[in-house]
């Protein structure tokens, strides 16, 4: 069972990488303008609501953004261009999910670093147990013997 751990972990990593590659290579499904507008509205933050998307809110500004999204898509802009249109005005704040890769990568990097640290610590602990300091133990034994002899004398 012990010998299986590494191949299993490696296999799992390979499978994950293959799945990520396949999903990246898959051609995007063409969405209608209505679907694109709905998807964009769900990704944009309503400016005067607490934590709601434009799609979820009935406020005047959310309605204005929905109209603007529809108008921009109708004018031939791509969803990326529409997103950028709002980022140019509101900053990245307007997007409910961050676009910066560091926001997604940081937790993974931290997990890997923590895992490596834990692994190194466990390895050190095991090595420490596996090789007791024989010379030191022998010297200690001799010291105890000497003390017992001294007591007997």
């Amino acid at each position, binding site marked *: 069972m012990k010998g299986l751990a590494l191949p299993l972990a490696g296999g799992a990593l390979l499978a994950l990488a293959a799945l990520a590659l396949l999903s990246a290579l898959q051609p995007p499904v063409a969405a209608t303008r209505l679907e694109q507008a709905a998807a964009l509205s769900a990704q944009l933050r309503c*400016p*005067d609501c607490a934590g709601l998307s434009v799609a979820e809110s009935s406020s*005047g*500004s959310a309605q*204005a*953004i929905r*109209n*603007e999204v529809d108008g921009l898509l109708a004018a031939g802009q791509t969803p990326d261009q529409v997103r950028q249109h*709002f*980022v*140019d*005005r*509101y*900053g990245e*704040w*307007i997007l409910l999910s961050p676009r910066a890769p560091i926001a997604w990568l940081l937790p993974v990097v931290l997990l890997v670093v923590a895992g490596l640290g834990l692994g190194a610590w466990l390895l050190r602990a095991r090595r420490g147990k596996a090789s007791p300091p024989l010379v030191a133990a022998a010297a200690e034994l001799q010291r105890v013997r000497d003390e017992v002899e001294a007591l007997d004398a």
Partner: protein
Amino acid sequence: MRVLRWLILPLLVVPLSWVLLTGFSVNPNEVPSALIGKPMPSFSLTTLDGTKLDSRALRGKPVMINFWASWCPPCVAEHSVLLDAQRRLGGRLQIVGVLYQDTAADARSFLATHGDPGYASLQDDDSRLALDFGVSGPPETYFVDAGGMVRGKQFGPLSAAALREQLARIGVSDS
């Protein structure tokens, strides 16, 4: 490895303290402006008086664009600062109001009750200008220099001190 043991506590405490200290001093509702350092969005809108105002007519002199609404209590709180600013600085500064999701009738009623500063207020019926400025809610005020570049944004009501600080960014001294 021994050095690392000494570093563990500072490595945990310093970033955590920094996040807590800076996080608590930030207003979570305040949206930082993406327009700072960029040209003011252009517009051509009808004022409450029924005349047209084109943004090109504002070039060459500092501008203060104030988004407000009659239904917004903080707008009442800042109104005296705006009245005073127009009275004292009207010759050196152009102030323009923009109605934020409000009706012309309610806006006129507000001005009749709280005092009309005399500068134009634009009707932004489809909120297009508010979206172009990235407004998240009234009152919000943008400060534009004589070259047409946005230099400052005031989130929430203007106080006399905040006004002085923002005006300094567009080369208008208020002392």
